[in-house]
């Protein structure tokens, strides 16, 4: 990992904040989020549903919901995105950043052919003629494992299976050889057997194109052999960040511990960890101190103050009482 950490980051997010206006009142959805993704590196963005992962991703590509305010800095390959004109920023999508959406069925156009959608992207960013773009599109479909690629160019998304749809989505995202891929739970909508195939394809594309990747998931274990680092989000905050291996085996934040425990257990040690009780607090109702406090087994009066993200062992943790790696865990959870 040392060689990776010395290269310049492809994506450098600093103090990202997203605020929505709900019933005329500003409501924070993402606060103070900072992380980097370096060339060739895959970073997992983990957290329960509703923690602000998708919002973070959409802020990065400049497509937050209507009426959202985005603060902080987002640099792509050393270029500040937040000060770019709308038009210049738009051009980076598809060319430098590829985005893989969760639901390929609704995220691909229902009445344009697969080929037309691929060609639109290719011809927007690359100087290609009609025929060249079509040939390139067929190559892409072939590359992502779609049989009879040339014939498939003329098919519509409703004619394909779920796995094939997501392959098309991946082809679209990598079509112009971007530097960064953001994949937002790309396998959540798929059957379990298909999930593994799509994940394998993403792995291949990543090493083949030397992509930096931000992989959003609520299940860290699935991507443990795929991602280098993990960023754990809870209620709009990053609560823990570090190498995937250490986060999986020795999480420091109580939320991360619960999250890992929520994965079906494989060994005796893990079984002791229970699911986290309660729910992510709704927007606008976050506790003023540690946002995890109402659900945390270790919470005390110190936790009424909002903790900062501090380096801890190999990671960074936002917790007043982080779980120590060396000490064998004895406290009772839940």
């Amino acid at each position, binding site marked *: 990992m040392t060689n990776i950490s010395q290269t310049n980051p492809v994506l450098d997010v600093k103090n990202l904040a997203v605020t929505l206006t709900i019933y005329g009142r500003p409501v924070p959805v993402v606060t103070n989020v900072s992380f980097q993704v370096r060339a060739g590196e895959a970073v997992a963005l983990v957290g329960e549903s509703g923690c602000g992962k998708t919002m973070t991703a959409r802020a990065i590509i400049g*497509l937050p919901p209507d009426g959202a305010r985005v603060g902080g800095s987002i640099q792509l390959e050393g270029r500040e995105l937040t000060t770019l004109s709308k038009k210049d920023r738009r051009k980076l999508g598809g060319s430098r950043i590829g985005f893989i959406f969760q639901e390929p069925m609704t995220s691909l156009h229902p009445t*344009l052919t697969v080929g037309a959608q691929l060609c639109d992207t290719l011809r927007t960013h690359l100087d290609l003629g009609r025929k060249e773009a079509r040939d390139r599109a067929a190559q892409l479909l072939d590359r992502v494992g779609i049989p009879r690629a040339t014939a498939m160019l003329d098919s519509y998304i409703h004619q394909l299976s779920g796995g094939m749809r997501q392959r098309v989505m991946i082809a*679209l995202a990598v079509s112009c050889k971007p530097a960064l891929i953001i994949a937002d739970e790309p396998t959540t909508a798929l059957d379990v057997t298909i999930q593994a195939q799509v994940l394998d394809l993403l792995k291949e594309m990543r090493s083949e194109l030397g992509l930096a990747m931000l992989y959003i998931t609520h299940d860290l274990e699935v991507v443990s052999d795929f991602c280098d680092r993990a960023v754990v989000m809870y209620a709009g905050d990053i609560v823990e960040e570090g190498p995937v291996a250490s986060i999986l085996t020795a999480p420091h934040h109580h939320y991360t511990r619960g999250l890992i425990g929520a994965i079906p257990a494989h060994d005796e040690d893990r079984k002791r960890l229970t699911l986290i009780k309660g729910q992510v607090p709704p927007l606008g109702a976050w506790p003023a101190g540690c946002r995890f406090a109402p659900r945390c087994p270790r919470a005390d009066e110190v936790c009424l103050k909002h903790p900062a993200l501090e380096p801890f062992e190999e990671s960074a943790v936002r917790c007043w009482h982080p779980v120590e790696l060396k000490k064998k865990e004895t406290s009772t959870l839940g």
Partner: protein
Amino acid sequence: MGKYIRRRLLHALPTIFIPLVLVFFLLRLAPGDPAVQILGDNATPEQIAALRTQLGLDQPLPIQFLLWLKGLFTLQLGDSLFFHKPVLELIPAYAAVTLQLTFFALVIAMVIGLSAGIAASLLRGKILDRGIIGVMVFSISLPEFWLALVLIFVFAVTLRWFPVAGYVSFDEGVWASLATLVLPALAIGVRQAALLTRMTRSAMLDVLDEPYVTTARAQGLPEATVIGRYTLRTAAVPVVTVIGLSVSYLLSGAVAIELIFSLPGMGKLLVDAVSRRDYPVVEGSVLTIAVTLVVVNLIVDLVYAWLDPRIRLK
């Protein structure tokens, strides 16, 4: 595709047939005798009886119906009792006026409706959007006859920009002809323009929220492509349905508004024919209007299938 068209046409047959049968019976069961109408009040009973025999009106109703059916299927619609000319020769001149008026009104409704609807959707919540909604709600509530009278008063009587009533045919000058159609076309077109604005706006808003539009933006496609190709394409599907309905309303609206503006169209032909008990002309007119509606619906269906492969490939 051929199968699709054939199926649609088969569905259309009742649409043509049922109104015709209704008209046949209504005319014959209603009081009033065409022979009396034609010969006038001074005719002797013998003259009337002779004419009734000649017209086949002395036959029992079921026989009349069978003969009428035979005529219908062989397109022998008979001669006008009043003009003494074949119905099929009589109708085209009147139909042309109504079709011109309908087409003109449709152009007005589509140009205003589509552009205002698209503009409003792209400026969702902004002042222009609210303004368009306001004008739209007001326009939908305007009765056509009332609007016609206001238009005549303002633009024909006071400003004298357009003739009060009457018709100039295309052959006598395109502009003069159009001038006679502007006010009637507006009278029936404004309401449809407003309805089309509403439909276009809401269809656009629905599609703009679709994830595939976000994908198009995330892929870096220019906004013109995102709107023109990715949004309009799907938003057009419900809008086309409304345009098809609009054409039906405009056709019937045209038939009615012709009377206010004294335009020699199908409306005038039909109303005159009914009061003269000119059965063949009434039936021919209804047949013409029904066939026109069927053709319009077929065109809508075809556009539909062209726009949405999910229908076409079924």
